């Protein structure tokens, strides 16, 4: 009989062992819960974050002064099928940009890495040409949507409507890439005290994972494969004079799950309206969290 590595470990399944296993799972789940507290905030109308960094202190809020609003200068990173369509292969209907081009872009979004991974399991015909970065076509195809600027406009409107803050839009300023974090030191002394920076980092389509596959959530899924639109936005508040980051939070906005066909109907109207709803919800949520929500400690259910 081979020597066991851990002679004291038994394969017998007693109640005590089961109890210990359950308790170990509890501990693990608790740890996972804590880790998830650092995940992005799910956006209004999903109303509350699970933990995350604290809201701005009231003293800081009252001294934000004149605010400069900036957005990302680069288009968001788009997770799409890999390899994507090469620029040279863009169909004529796509030049100049048209609905046909948008539909093709939705195809690429829809068939993102998840689908590609599934395909590679079942088939050996996965194209291997990686010469073209997958997102290049997507950047071209989705550029007319002007995602960063549209979010900025929504946000500016929301700030003016909900607060009495003095806001100036700085169209030429902002992070140059997904992870760029400018300090805005070059605009020091130009009459702005604070910068509110929003940067759409990612646009992607997600398959239903985890609990969506179980009852009762499964009932909201259309038959067959489905994806939802997800927009991830990084928000920072920067003190221009001190060059200090006062607030940092990631917000994610989701749409309902739809099949590929549903996303494309009536000239991709569901796709466009989902993005539009995301801009509205994101701007509402960002303004609320930065300027309006009083940070009560979360204790039990009631405030």
């Amino acid at each position, binding site marked *: 009989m081979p020597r066991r590595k851990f002679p004291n470990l038994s394969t017998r399944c007693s109640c005590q*062992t089961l109890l210990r296993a359950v308790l170990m799972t509890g501990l693990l789940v*608790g740890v996972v*819960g804590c880790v*998830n507290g650092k*995940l992005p905030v799910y956006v209004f109308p*999903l109303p509350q974050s699970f933990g995350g960094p604290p809201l701005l202190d009231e003293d800081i809020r009252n001294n934000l002064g004149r605010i400069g609003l900036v957005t990302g200068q680069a288009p968001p990173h788009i997770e799409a099928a890999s390899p994507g369509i090469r620029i040279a292969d863009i169909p004529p209907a796509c030049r100049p940009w048209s609905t046909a081009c948008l539909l093709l872009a939705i195809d690429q979004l829809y068939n993102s890495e998840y689908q590609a991974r599934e395909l590679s399991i079942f088939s050996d015909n996965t194209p291997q040409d990686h010469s073209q970065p997958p997102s290049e076509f997507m950047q071209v195809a989705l550029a007319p949507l002007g995602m960063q600027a549209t979010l900025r406009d929504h946000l500016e409107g929301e700030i003016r409507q909900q607060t009495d803050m003095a806001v100036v839009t700085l169209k030429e300023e902002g992070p140059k890439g997904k992870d760029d974090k400018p300090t805005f030191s070059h605009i020091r002394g130009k009459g702005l005290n604070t910068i509110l920076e929003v940067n759409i980092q990612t646009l992607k389509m997600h398959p239903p994972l985890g*609990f969506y596959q179980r009852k009762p959530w499964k009932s909201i899924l259309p038959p067959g494969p489905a994806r939802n639109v997800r927009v991830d936005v990084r928000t920072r508040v920067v003190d221009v004079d001190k060059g200090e980051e006062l607030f940092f939070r990631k917000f994610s906005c989701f749409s309902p799950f739809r099949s590929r066909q549903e996303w494309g109907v009536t000239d991709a109207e569901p796709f466009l309206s989902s993005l539009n709803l995301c801009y509205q919800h994101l701007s509402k949520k960002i303004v609320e969290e930065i300027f309006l929500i009083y940070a009560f400690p979360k204790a039990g259910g009631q405030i």
Partner: protein
Amino acid sequence: MKNRKGKKEIIGSVLTAFLRPKKVVSLKSPVFFVPLVILLHTTSGCFFAHYYGLEPLYPPMPTSNAGRARAINSLTPTFSWKPWDPPQKLTHGTQEVTYDLLVLIEDKGWPGEVIYERKALSSPSHTIEVPLNPATTYYWSVRARFSLHGKTRVTHWSGQEAFLLSSHPSFLFKFKTPNDI
């Protein structure tokens, strides 16, 4: 190599100590008690609906299975919620408390467009002025709005959460209108 063996031994002895302890450990011991509390806390959302923000009175919140729509019997329901008393530390700076109400239509199991919104309601109830569609699921939420040292402040939108253990979204309160009146 020697070091590696040492690590294995340590891991083995830790596993052995936990899974087959030589002494009987009491259930009151922190070894069991702490994970038990965490387990109950994290899974309680599966059995009991938690809410945060203002407590809804009508349409009521489901007592379990958060996310299930509560059936109501009117197309022009009167929403009501427990009034909010500002915490004592705020009362010196807080003046009048008003409420914001929000109703959203469901779109494929997901909160969609905001179809009804009222701000600064003076009482903790409001009858919807535009009839809702029959046999339709809606989401609603409410929050308190108050003035603190001359600045507008709000509470979080109220809602409920079904699970605390992972990155699941939390939910606005959900209700379904009757088929026919």
